[in-house]
């Protein structure tokens, strides 16, 4: 590894690997770093094999770019084609500091907003770089044919998003994620056709292989044939997304999982800030116990919709039209008069939860509780007229009606918050390298850029920034320092990993218990949602920390997985993922309990100022990186607890100064 740019001294409190922050003015840091990093001779690039796991925005853009550069790339995804990665479902948009609207935006402002929005729990240098390359993302996407919204003059349109004061969000109707992903996917397919990238769809990474302290490959299961095999590489990059499905019900795709990052964690990669999760306030509420996932409705609905619940719990079962104006509680307008219905995501989410916990929720009662609040467009229709409302929100209303069977023009929409994005992830240094040399982590899978809360339209930006414009440089710097090749999958480390994967599969199939995988996942999810969701307490987390090992033990004794390991077996796939969630959830709760402050999406009930999050910068201005201490490969199948070691990376703010968020 190159030593020449470990310029910032690592503070004494941090005992992990150097995080290689650049020194000097933040505005020129990335440019200077790019110059100081080593390059790989074009003729030598094909000798280096790189594995990319995941084909979402981060994975596909990285695989395509590295292929273009001439590396020998293998890309893996569990879906049937790389185009289906969950980045596709992002609706809103992608931020970039283009300042096309001449409204005072700049790279520095995007950087500032992101650090502040992240509630001072992200690394300044990483965020600045993100803001800096954001402008290149738009250029790249447009050149690939991404059909962004345009003005009549033919130039790109922008909108303001998520309460930002400038219009910096580029969008493609409500399908920005899909269009950006298809751009990256087409670049990836072009490289597949050229032979620089070999794609492995329907192939799930089940272990990371570390040889002599470096990441040297992965062990995978072919989801169609069940064959377990390994791939060797000179470096591995994970772009496998977030872990919001630990809550079972989330807006994530059903297949989203923590498996690849968790397995890498067990092989030595530290997991940072797992408790930082984002809850989206406007999702369609749960309709019944069979519910399989939650659907997000665009936040833009809150621009004109008014949020309310009945003042009196006795009115909750009545038709909303029968509840008089005086009996309604427009709680966001009441509590936050200046921001009202446009209060930030975390605040609006918690307020909805409080109202429902107070017994004033609306909609169908699921397991004894009504979890929903009204989002009412009656006033907007009165003020703007039905055609104007339909023009703005017609497609969203249709989508709502398709799912709920209710017409939002007749009955107010019902909304409830749902887990949506996870800011935490594998710890990476400024080079996006984890604590395992040769293992890089990109996109939502890493922890680096969003701190404790992500701003709207920044997830797409980060995935593409990492894949197109950061990893190709930092990976080259790593590869330039090592010799290519010299290993194959007959090495003992690969054989061991394959054996462990096969043993775990056999074990899952042999239990033949009474409970289905989904029933364990649902129980875990509900518990996590109740105690590690929108509001967390020391007691609640402690109880859950006691309960998780018990549930895990039961899982390994009583789960039922039909079929065999040598075929397409969707239950087996789910079982492996849920087994990992059952381990991961514990670290997540531990992190939430250890962080005795409220910041961003992490709200500890004990630490608040009249309902507002109370940050503790003196004690918690750090990233919490957890080191796994259990056995490397084998699952934690018993009732024993995971006891990871905590390492604290201090966060230093030289440019953006601590301030308390206030929306009153």
């Amino acid at each position: 590894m190159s030593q020449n740019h470990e310029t910032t001294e690592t503070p004494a409190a941090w005992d992990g690997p150097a995080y290689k922050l650049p020194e000097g003015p933040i505005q020129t840091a990335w440019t200077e770093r790019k110059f100081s990093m080593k390059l790989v001779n074009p003729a030598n690039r094909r000798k280096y094999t790189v594995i990319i796991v995941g084909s979402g925005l981060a994975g596909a853009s990285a695989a395509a770019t590295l292929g273009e550069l001439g590396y020998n790339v293998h890309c893996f995804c569990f879906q049937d084609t790389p185009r289906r990665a969950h980045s596709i479902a992002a609706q809103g948009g992608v931020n970039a500091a283009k300042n096309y609207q001449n409204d005072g935006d700049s790279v520095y402002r995007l950087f500032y907003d992101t650090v502040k929005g992240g509630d001072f729990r992200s690394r300044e240098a990483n965020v600045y770089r993100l803001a800096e390359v954001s402008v290149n993302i738009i250029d790249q996407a447009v050149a690939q044919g991404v059909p962004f919204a345009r003005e009549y003059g033919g130039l790109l349109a922008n909108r303001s998003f998520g309460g930002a004061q400038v219009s910096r969000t580029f969008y493609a109707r409500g399908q920005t994620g899909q269009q950006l992903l298809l751009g990256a996917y087409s670049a990836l397919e072009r490289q597949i056709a050229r032979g620089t990238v070999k794609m492995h769809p329907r192939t799930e990474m089940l272990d990371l292989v570390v040889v002599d302290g470096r990441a040297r490959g992965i062990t995978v299961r072919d989801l169609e044939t069940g064959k377990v095999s390994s791939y060797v590489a000179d470096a591995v990059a994970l772009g496998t997304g977030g872990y919001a499905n630990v809550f079972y019900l989330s807006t994530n795709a059903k297949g989203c999982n923590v498996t690849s990052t968790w397995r890498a964690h067990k092989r030595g990669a530290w997991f940072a800030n797992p408790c930082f999760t984002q809850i989206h306030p406007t999702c369609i509420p749960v309709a019944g116990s069979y519910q399989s996932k939650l659907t997000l409705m665009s936040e833009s609905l809150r621009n004109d919709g008014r949020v309310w619940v009945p003042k009196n719990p006795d009115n909750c079962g009545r038709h909303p039209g029968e509840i008089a104006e005086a009996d309604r509680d427009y709680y966001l307008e009441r509590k936050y008069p200046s921001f009202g219905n446009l209060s930030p995501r975390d605040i609006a989410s918690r307020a909805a939860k409080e109202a429902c916990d107070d017994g004033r929720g609306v909609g169908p009662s699921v397991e004894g509780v009504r979890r929903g609040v009204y989002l009412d467009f009656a006033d907007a229709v009165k003020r703007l007229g039905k055609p104007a409302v339909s023009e703005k929100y017609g497609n969203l209303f249709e989508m709502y009606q398709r799912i709920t069977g209710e017409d939002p023009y007749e009955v107010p929409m019902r909304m409830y918050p749902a887990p949506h994005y996870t800011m935490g992830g594998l710890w990476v240094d400024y080079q996006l390298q984890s604590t395992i040399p040769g293992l890089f982590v990109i996109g939502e899978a890493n922890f680096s850029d969003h701190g404790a809360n992500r701003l709207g339209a920044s997830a797409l930006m980060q995935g593409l920034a990492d894949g197109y414009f950061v990893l190709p440089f930092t990976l080259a710097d790593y590869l330039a320092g090592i010799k290519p090749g010299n290993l194959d999958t007959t090495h003992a480390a690969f054989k061991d990993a394959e054996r462990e994967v096969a043993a775990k599969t056999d074990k899952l199939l042999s239990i033949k218990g009474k409970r289905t995988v989904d029933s364990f996942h649902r129980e875990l999810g509900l518990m996590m949602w109740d105690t590690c969701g929108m509001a967390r307490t020391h007691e609640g987390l402690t109880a859950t920390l006691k309960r998780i090992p018990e549930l895990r033990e039961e899982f390994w004794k009583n789960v039922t997985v039909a079929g065999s390991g040598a075929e397409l077996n969707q239950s087996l796939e789910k079982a492996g993922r849920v087994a990992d969630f059952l381990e991961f959830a514990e670290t997540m709760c531990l992190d939430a309990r250890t962080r005795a402050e409220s910041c961003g999406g992490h709200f500890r009930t004990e630490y608040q100022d009249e309902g507002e999050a109370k940050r503790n910068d003196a004690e918690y201005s750090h990233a919490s990186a957890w080191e796994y201490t259990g056995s490397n490969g084998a699952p934690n199948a018993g009732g024993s607890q995971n006891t990871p070691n905590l390492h604290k990376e201090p966060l230093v703010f030289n440019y953006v100064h601590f301030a308390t968020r206030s929306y009153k």
Partner: protein
Amino acid sequence: MRIKLHVWRQSGRDAKGDFETHECPDVSEHMSFLEMLDVLNERLESAGKAPIAFEHDCREGICGSCGFMINGQAHGPQPRTTVCQLHMRTFKDGDELTLEPWRAKAFPVVRDLVVDRSAFDRIIQAGGYISTNTGSAPEANSVPVRKDSADKSFDAAACIGCGACVAMCPNASASLFTAAKLAHMNLLPQGQPERLVRGERMVVAMDVEGFGHCTNHSDCEAVCPKGISVTNIAMMNRGFVEATLFSSPREGSTED
């Protein structure tokens, strides 16, 4: 309500398949179609039986994973709706539904209702991209795009690659899929340099995969969850004629 299902079961690519009948006794009208199958699958799993394999992921109608035939209709009876967004209130108590996988030579059945749609990826590999290496892009606003072109391009780009068009087409043709990608790129100025070659190669790739041809039935458009228009197919045909008959071989050539 009570729903009776006749589901195609097939244990693997080369296995022989057949229909299996299942009763779903307590279906809620608020369930999505896939949630009904989830409940059935949990019951099968508890009984130690193999659950029905079906593809799904986002369950918001955008990833394109899900899809099968419900009573001879791709994605079922609700227009512009993928099967994951189809809710049981569309059906009535006592309905009997036949679930079959997409059927096409180019979409071999992998298991039950799961088919292999990698042929679509290979059509894209043949030319469904604009060759732009990372970093080489010009300033985004340096090329204005007429709004109507951008909008039309977008309409075509909305394709989610689910394969319903192939499944519903009496000829198992992939023309709508291929034409949508061509229209997406060819309607933009960025797509012009490779327009001819793209059109020729993708059509040839579609043939190589063994899809049928288009006889303008328009069944594809009717079941497309994104409402992609068959007029894109006419544009594809025109482009193909231009590329093969009326342009010199080197025109718009691309890397190999």
